[in-house]
């Protein structure tokens, strides 16, 4: 088991280095003046340009630039944003909010996704199954930003059930609607995955043996079908984190939440490239770590791979 963990960590290192290198290269190695690119549509005075050049170490050879960039990641020093605040400070404030939002979304999508998927899988071909399947297709097809401000408009503005924007008040009730929106697409995927998994496992040999042993249907489903069906769902949740992050940018933007995503959203619309790069880098690091954790969770659920 330890060997499995060790191997996964070792595998993550080159991926981490490679990914950060890739991001850095994309930003700084593109043809043209990176400073101009970073400045976007704004014109820069030569003084500011020189300052930026120094700050991003552009006069140094590339590998040194990259190493300093890495060092920045590890010491959480990302320099300052255009508005003057240190990026790490902005991050420290924004991070907990996004974590709360993402966590709520995760609970929603997992609980409802697995729950509905289980029922649909057990009654495959039935009315509930067909309805739920169609519903999930629609959720996947409609982009999250459309769902976002449709929800915002109808539930927030027109019917006034919850406040349409969050702003400073990040209580659970306020974050509920954004969390539902954020988790909506993932909920659809989890539902479909669970459904397929359950339907498949229901016809597995060991389920038949379990029934032949004299176990009640409820127990067979709980202990044998569900447990085995969760394994692919867990794997999916790791990859899904990427979708959540991307979706968070849009959702936080729409609902005016000052989390990591919202900051990126504003930075993107304002053209503040350095902030975008730093924040995206953080998200990538989180993504890699989360995938590592998901791999470990997978090993906990499936004893067969512990010794591979």
């Amino acid at each position, binding site marked *: 088991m330890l060997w499995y963990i060790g191997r996964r960590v070792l*595998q993550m290192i*080159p*991926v*981490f280095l*490679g*990914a950060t290198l*890739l*991001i850095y290269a*994309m*930003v700084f190695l*593109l043809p043209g003046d990176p400073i101009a*690119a*970073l400045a*976007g*549509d704004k014109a820069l005075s030569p003084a500011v340009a020189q300052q930026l050049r120094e700050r991003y170490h552009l006069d140094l050879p590339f590998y040194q630039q990259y190493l300093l960039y890495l060092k920045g990641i590890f010491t959480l020093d990302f320099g300052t944003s255009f508005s003057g605040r240190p990026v790490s400070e902005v991050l420290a404030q924004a991070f907990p909010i996004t974590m709360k939002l993402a966590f709520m979304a995760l609970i929603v999508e997992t609980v409802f996704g697995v729950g509905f998927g289980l029922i649909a899988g057990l009654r495959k071909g039935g009315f509930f199954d067909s309805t739920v399947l169609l519903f999930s*297709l*629609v959720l*996947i*097809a*409609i*982009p*999250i*930003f*459309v769902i976002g*401000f*449709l929800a915002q*408009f109808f539930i927030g*503005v027109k019917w006034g059930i919850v406040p349409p924007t969050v702003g400073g008040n990040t209580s659970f009730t306020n974050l509920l609607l954004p969390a539902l929106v954020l988790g909506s697409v993932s909920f659809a995927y989890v539902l479909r995955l669970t459904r397929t998994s359950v339907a498949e496992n229901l016809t597995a040999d060991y389920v038949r043996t379990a029934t032949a042993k004299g176990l009640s249907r409820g127990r067979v489903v709980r202990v044998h079908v569900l447990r085995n069906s969760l394994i692919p769902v867990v794997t999916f949740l790791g990859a899904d984190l*990427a*979708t959540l*992050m*991307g979706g968070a*940018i*849009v959702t936080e*933007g729409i609902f005016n939440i000052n989390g990591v995503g919202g900051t*990126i*959203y504003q930075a*993107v*619309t304002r*053209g503040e*490239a350095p902030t*975008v*790069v730093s924040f*995206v880098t953080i*998200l*990538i690091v989180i*993504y*890699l770590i989360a*995938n590592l954790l998901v791999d470990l969770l997978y090993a906990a659920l499936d004893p067969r791979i512990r010794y591979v």
Partner: protein
Amino acid sequence: MSETVKTGRVVRQSHFVAPPEVAAPGETDAVKLDQAPTSMWTDAWRDLRKRPLFIISTIIILAVIVIAAFPSLFTSTDPRFCDLTYSMQGPTSGHWFGFDRQGCDVYSRTIYGARASVLVGVGVTASVLVIGVIFGALSGFYGGWTDSILSRVADIFFGIPLILAAIVLMQLFTDRTIWTVVGVLALFGWPQMARIARGAVISAKNNDYVMASEALGVSKLKTLIRHVIPNSLAPIIVVATISLGTYIVAEATLSFLGIGLPSTEVSWGGDISNAQVTLRQGSTILFYPATALAITVLGFIMMGDALRDALDPKSRKR
């Protein structure tokens, strides 16, 4: 050796023989020649033809492609002709969806918006198929060091979520075109296809017909191309179809954020973004591009679902 057979203290049952017509020993293992020959693809096609999901999605996709290719058949208004005097006016004859904030004809823009979405979807999917399948097939078939290295490379790209990477890259380009978007999305979308291709190739390669092919003297590369890849196509096609839908959504999301297609291009995502504010004023112009987008994506995803069910090896007759 003596006969080790159970005889017993138990009741002896009588000998029963069925009449000879029962299980009449006709030819053992005769070939049934009554139906027309069918291959796996013919079987799948027959199955698909009957599925409502497939029929509906085909209609949608064909409709969208026709609209994208020949927008002038559906509207004679120039989507870029925007007159501020018409700003936010309601539907009138010839302009069934009304006008947006800039005074552009919403119906026309909805029609012309299909082109960008379809081009991006098809462009990215095609690129991703080529890169991903080559990578995945080589990796899965040859294994060993090839597999290790190629997998690591794929992992690195995979480790950066598509939207995030796209956001980072796109905002660095000041002149963007459709092909910029296609390029960026393809650059980070191929690892997913490579993984699927690799998995499909690995499971196809384990079949005896691969070994039989090599034992005939066919080179490894030719075996890969002639035998392994055709048998790996099923999951690849399913994923490609569904991904097409998600790439269209990705483009719309980028345009919504303002870093996708430039505002000179007609894009559903961009239109939705522009129409955001109007929603609060009670206008419905947002719904047209949104619905068009949703239906288009729905068409591709439903198609992918139908294909997956039809090509599922477990439901095919053996």
